[in-house]
């Protein structure tokens, strides 16, 4: 429901951008249509100079929007929008809705249980393999559990003789505003 509700403002978006680019006379037209003023007023408006009323554009065209403009806009819309209205349905429709809702909950639960089961299976498989390694001695005259110890080593996981990049950074309480400065040169 909330995701549907968040689409509210999107229909307005192309209209606004069109207004910004098009000629000002047409941009005033829909506003005039909606107004409730008398005919006298509209007549007078026709007589008034066009330059006086409409030429001032709403947004200057050269204004650069940041690359996150669209995202910020949607975020703002969703952050400050009121809660969606409650569902109002007749009895049978509500029952159908309820049925679908219950089925959806059940379906998700089954999915979750299935993934959980799969993960448990994989984890158990890994555990059993490690146990097997731990009990085995060899190859050659190696002692028992040699293969297990080697398997548990994390060497080379992040590169040859390397440490994870997280440890190369100075540890701070909170993350930096920019994750990594790629342009940096010595």
């Amino acid at each position: 429901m909330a995701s549907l509700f968040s689409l509210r403002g999107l229909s307005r978006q192309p209209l606004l951008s069109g207004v910004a680019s098009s000629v000002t006379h047409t941009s005033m037209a829909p506003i005039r249509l909606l107004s409730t003023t008398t005919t006298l007023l509209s007549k007078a408006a026709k007589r008034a100079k066009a330059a006086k009323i409409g030429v001032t554009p709403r947004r200057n065209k050269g204004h650069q929007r940041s690359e996150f403009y669209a995202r910020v806009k949607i975020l703002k819309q969703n952050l400050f929008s009121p809660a969606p209205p409650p569902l109002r349905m007749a009895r049978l429709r509500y029952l159908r809705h309820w049925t679908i809702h219950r089925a959806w909950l059940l379906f998700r639960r089954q999915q979750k249980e299935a993934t959980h089961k799969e993960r448990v299976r994989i984890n158990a498989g890994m555990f059993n393999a490690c146990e097997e390694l731990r009990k085995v001695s060899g190859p050659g005259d190696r002692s028992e559990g040699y293969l297990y110890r080697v398997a548990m080593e994390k060497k080379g996981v992040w590169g040859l003789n390397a440490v994870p990049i997280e440890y190369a950074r100075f540890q701070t309480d909170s993350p930096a505003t920019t994750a990594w400065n790629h342009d940096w040169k010595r």
Partner: protein
Amino acid sequence: MRSLIAQRPIMAALSGLSRVCINRTAPIGAQLANSLVQGQRYASVKSQGAYKKKSKRGIPKKLGAKRTGDQYVIPGNIIYKQRGTLWWPGENCIMGRDFTIHAMATGYVKYYRDPARHPDRKYIGVTFEKDDVLPYPAHAERKRKLGRTAHQIRPEVAQPEISPSGIPFQITRVEKGEPDRLLRLRKDYSYREDNWRIGRLVQTTGLKIKRFRTRKQYFRHRRWRREREIEGQRKAAQRREELGDDAVKVVKQLSKKALKKAKKAGRK
């Protein structure tokens, strides 16, 4: 405690002085700054005496316990006066608007704690028996007193319908489309409705006397009305500006009735 705090700066000053004595080579300005930092006050300040003065005595609030434990109280007696809730009302007690604790029964005052009710609170209660211990055991029946005495109900004496002078004590005035009204004989032999009945008449009319239920509602309405007015005036000014000078002619809004009248007049 206060005296200790008061002595603190003096001690600090003393230590500052001693350091001044030892450190002969330091320049005088530096020494002065040092002593100032450490809170030394000179005789000129001390002679004013203001910082050592105690606060003046205000009006005593006379707070505290008015009844001790096991003391006999009757309903309404004040047991404890306090600011805030040092003590809470327990058995047969209530707390007044200013946190004063009053007795609600005749009995004996008990100061106690009740961990089952609240772990930290101290309670004041009143028991009927002096030997009772508060809190009462949990799940025990409450101790209550009736506090009433039995009296015979007096049978209602029938009021004679006719007064000694031969006229009825009360008559009903029946008016069509109006509620019936009971008029009673007065000392001056006139018939008049009771004042309290006249007061009740307002309810029968169904009039709406107050437009707003509360004062708050009225003020909110006034604020909105003013805002609307200002908004309207602003819009009117804007319109006038848009129309320019030639459109100053104002078309007066006429009601339908007035229009009809004008039309009729024009036809004649």
